[in-house]
């Protein structure tokens, strides 16, 4: 476990060594504010909850998470430091985990910085803070899923642009799989059980379940296994094409 924590620490520090971290946090906070107040009609709804804030998270993450994950492995490939990292006495699994956890913690930190919204809604009314808490948890877990996909996409290429687009597209598929318009369309073509299976793989379904305030075991298992599967895929990708 020493390997994981050392890699994690280095990665996390390197986020803050470049403007990337600050730019990301700034854009994340501005956009989540814009979405909540303008698109989500936070005030007009006159309800003391954060639904308008959280409901845009899947879409917000679609282009913000790839921005964090794209550099995870692509940059190492591009600069050649992957050769340094992989010849240090650190196992591939530890390296993948350490990097992923650093990115996840960073995303979690950005999410925490949205706390003024929570204060606002508590100041304006009397929201169900339990629901808000599980929504935060759901959003964090979803960010983890997105990041795990991004980690795998980043391991595939030395180009950060390709890693960004790849992550965006795969995440979009996993979001859309549960989108009503898409499931409606699929229903005409596929048997119901397949449509349900596809929909159950969607981030959207599990995230909306959690953000209603119920953290079901199925949702937890879903998010954690998404993360596990995609990180395992990252390890395999690195094993197959480490030197490319």
């Amino acid at each position, binding site marked *: 476990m020493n390997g994981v924590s050392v*890699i994690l620490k*280095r990665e996390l*520090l390197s986020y803050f060594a470049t403007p990337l971290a600050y730019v990301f946090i700034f854009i994340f906070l501005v956009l989540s504010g814009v979405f909540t107040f303008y698109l989500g009609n936070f005030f007009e709804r006159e309800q003391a909850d954060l639904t308008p804030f959280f409901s845009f998270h899947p879409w917000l993450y679609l282009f913000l998470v790839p921005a964090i994950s794209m550099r995870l492995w692509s940059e190492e490939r591009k600069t050649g430091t992957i*050769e*340094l990292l992989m*010849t240090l*006495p650190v196992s591939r699994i530890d390296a993948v985990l350490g990097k992923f956890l650093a990115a996840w913690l960073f995303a979690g930190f950005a999410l925490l910085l949205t706390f003024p919204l929570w204060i606002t809604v508590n100041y304006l009314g009397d929201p169900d803070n339990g629901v808000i808490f599980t929504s935060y948890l759901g959003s964090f877990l979803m960010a983890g899923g997105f990041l795990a996909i991004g980690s795998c996409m980043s391991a595939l290429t030395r180009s950060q642009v390709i890693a960004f687009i790849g992550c965006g597209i795969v995440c979009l598929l996993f979001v859309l799989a549960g989108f009503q318009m898409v499931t409606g369309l699929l229903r005409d073509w596929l048997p119901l059980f397949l449509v349900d299976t596809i929909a159950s793989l969607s981030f959207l379904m599990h995230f909306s379940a959690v953000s209603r305030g119920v953290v079901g075991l199925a949702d937890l298992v879903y998010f954690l296994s998404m993360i596990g599967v995609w990180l395992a895929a990252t390890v395999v990708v690195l094993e197959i094409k480490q030197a490319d």
Partner: protein
Amino acid sequence: MLEVSHLHKQFGDLTAINDISFKLVPGEILGFLGPNGAGKSTTMKVITGFLAPSSGTVTVWGCDVATDPLGAQKHLGYLPEGAPLYEEMTPRTFLAFIAEVRGITGAESADRIRSVVSTMSLEAVLDQRIETLSKGFKRRVGLAQAILHDPDVLILDEPTDGLDPVQKHHVREMIQGLSKDKIVIISTHILEEVTAVCSRAIIIAGGSVLADCTPDELESRSRYHLATTIRFSGEEQLNTHRDALSTLEDVSGTDVSASSVELTLFPGETEGSSQRVAQQAVEYLRGHDADVTGIFQERGRLDEVFREITGLEVRH
């Protein structure tokens, strides 16, 4: 102990390494020579466990790199080609990171870092971001990283590439100064480096070992080995004496250097002929009052041997 046995590496249709085997014992400094694309870097990547071989095994201090890469990597210090570094870090944080990964902590870590920083003269740039450093400093940070844990086996891929002559000298001194129970492999295409630091030289080309011997033996393969070279004051002088010198006993041939003032006399095959050629040449030059600025016996020209062995002929 480091043992490489019957190593093969195939990239699609390209054979990068074709049956390379060698064994190194502590104290040996191996120079890995070869033209660009010969398979030097690939071999090093396989030894360090970065690349898996297509077949064959590498054993480092008893650890098989394929089955126990972490065990082998603990014994290894490695400077990859081009000295890649985490550019957003400073040498201080970078070296601290390497120490931590290698499980060196606390006072020992501080000691080791201080020691490599002074060996590599990095004091002045310790808190400067690596991306702002000159090529020479970057290379030295890479070297510092490789020797931080005082490894048993040190593998350096073109360690002096991009360094100025003073820095090159420092690096060679550092390598020679390593204690005698270490194994060092350096790859280079600078031939003097091999005679300067290595106790053994392996020349590879096209993925195969073409020569495996000491630098001295390599030199003795040269046509110029123990040949007598006379430097005249001018072309005219050389032409006056050339015919007489080339008919001296035991001289098997002559050559005039590109600068047209140096005449090389090649000795014959018989025992002691190189010495006789030198003595006779000196006597002749004295006797004929030739205007000579220097006379010396050649050690052998490595570049010529290198070209001959690798089959890269000179094109004039």
